[in-house]
């Protein structure tokens, strides 16, 4: 068996911009999902009953549908229904956010519930409003407690972006397929991007774990 990594080295710029798109899609998805997931969790916990029901159904449905199905549905089915066409990148961002937000919402809900009631009371007896108690006392502690789970969400998100290849978003996976198809060197190309994913993800999750070790005492009441 002979190894030839020249397809990778010859196309490194092409693959690197693919990685850039992977990272951009990941960062946007994570940011949007954290914001949306938090709002969903708050709506589910404190909103009116009808909203709680809708959001619970939404969360359950996202947990029951593969993200790949959500993606192809938004890209191929939604335009048929609504006449609105999303460019591939935005369709991927929407699908991933829709999916990941549901998981974030569950993490946020668990984080908020884990802060014990005495903390709420300590805020209330200072004369704070429930909203002030939530934003100044409960959420900051919940976020610290959620860090390890958010670390998992970030790594799952980065990995999930690879499915955007099926709707031809020019991210790392898609470009690797292209290079591999043109050069007939799947072993070298896919081994390389496997290593690249690992090199991106491993330090990221480690960094978040370290951050958590440093600040976890600030979330422990």
């Amino acid at each position: 068996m002979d190894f030839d990594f020249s397809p990778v080295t010859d196309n490194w710029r092409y693959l690197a911009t693919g990685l850039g798109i992977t990272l951009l899609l990941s960062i946007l998805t994570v940011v949007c999902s954290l914001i949306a997931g938090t709002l969903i969790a708050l709506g589910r916990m404190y909103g009116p009953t009808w909203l709680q029901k809708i959001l619970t159904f939404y969360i359950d449905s996202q947990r029951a549908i593969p993200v790949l199905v959500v993606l192809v549905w938004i890209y191929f089915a939604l335009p048929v229904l609504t006449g609105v066409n999303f460019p591939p990148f935005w369709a991927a961002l929407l699908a991933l956010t829709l999916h990941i937000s549901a998981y974030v919402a569950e993490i946020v809900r668990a984080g908020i519930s884990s802060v014990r009631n005495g903390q709420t009371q300590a805020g209330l007896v200072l004369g704070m409003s429930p909203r002030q108690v939530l934003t100044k006392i409960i959420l900051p502690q919940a976020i610290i407690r959620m860090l390890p789970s958010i670390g998992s969400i970030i790594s799952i998100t980065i990995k999930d972006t690879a499915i955007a290849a099926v709707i031809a978003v020019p991210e790392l996976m898609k470009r690797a397929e292209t290079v591999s198809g043109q050069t007939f060197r799947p072993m070298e190309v896919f081994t390389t991007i496997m290593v690249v994913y690992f090199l991106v993800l491993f330090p990221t999750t480690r960094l978040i774990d370290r951050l958590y070790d440093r600040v976890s005492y600030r979330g422990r009441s």
Partner: protein
Amino acid sequence: MSNVTEADFGRKNASSTPVVEYRDVRKQYGNFTALDGVSARVNRGEVLCLIGPSGSGKSTLLRTTNALEVIDGGQLYFDGHPLPSSKAEIRKVRQRMGMVFQSFELFPHKTVLENITIGPLTVLGISEAEANARARVLLEKVGLTDKADRYPANLSGGQQQRVAIARALAMEPEVMLFDEPTSALDPETIGEVLNVMKRLADEGMTMVVVTHEMSFARRVADWVVVFDHGKIVEQGPPAQIFDAPREDRTRNFLSHLGWNG
């Protein structure tokens, strides 16, 4: 408005409006009666200690005072006015009462200084400079000047409870409510918290203290209320309660604790 009964004779500020007055207060949890017609008053500058067996309703009464628990019957007066029912008004009342919990409940994500300033900053809307200055004075008062920038996790239980007292005092309350402030502490740090409370009492702070520290109640209380099964068994000055209790149940409770004068 409130009549001075014979029983109140000789109490501190007995003839002026009480800071807190409970009139026939009732509280139900489902079928369970936690407070069964409790009447008592807390005069200005007085230290009132609530004692009694576990589950007798001491915490419940304390928590009705600042509407953490809503009463099901009777009336509750703060500074001569019935406790309001609107949420905004209750918040105003809570700003004028400090509360200290058995489990401290410091905010773990805030430094000691921030724990003390958060109330005045978010609720009273004073400037950061003023809040910090106020906090430093209070830290000195509780003997923790050097801990201002620490996080609660790095303090001993006794230190945390002293910060919690400073946090409550930062709102400049008219009355301080303590719910077993030393019950969660190691024996060696109980004294430092009780000393802070004693000094507060000496400065004239009105205090309601639920406690199992009988020697503290004997020494510091102006008035002692004995609870059992949601009712007041007996109330009176510490000399009466501890040295010459009139009720058997008071005597039984005290002897259970090993109190012998």
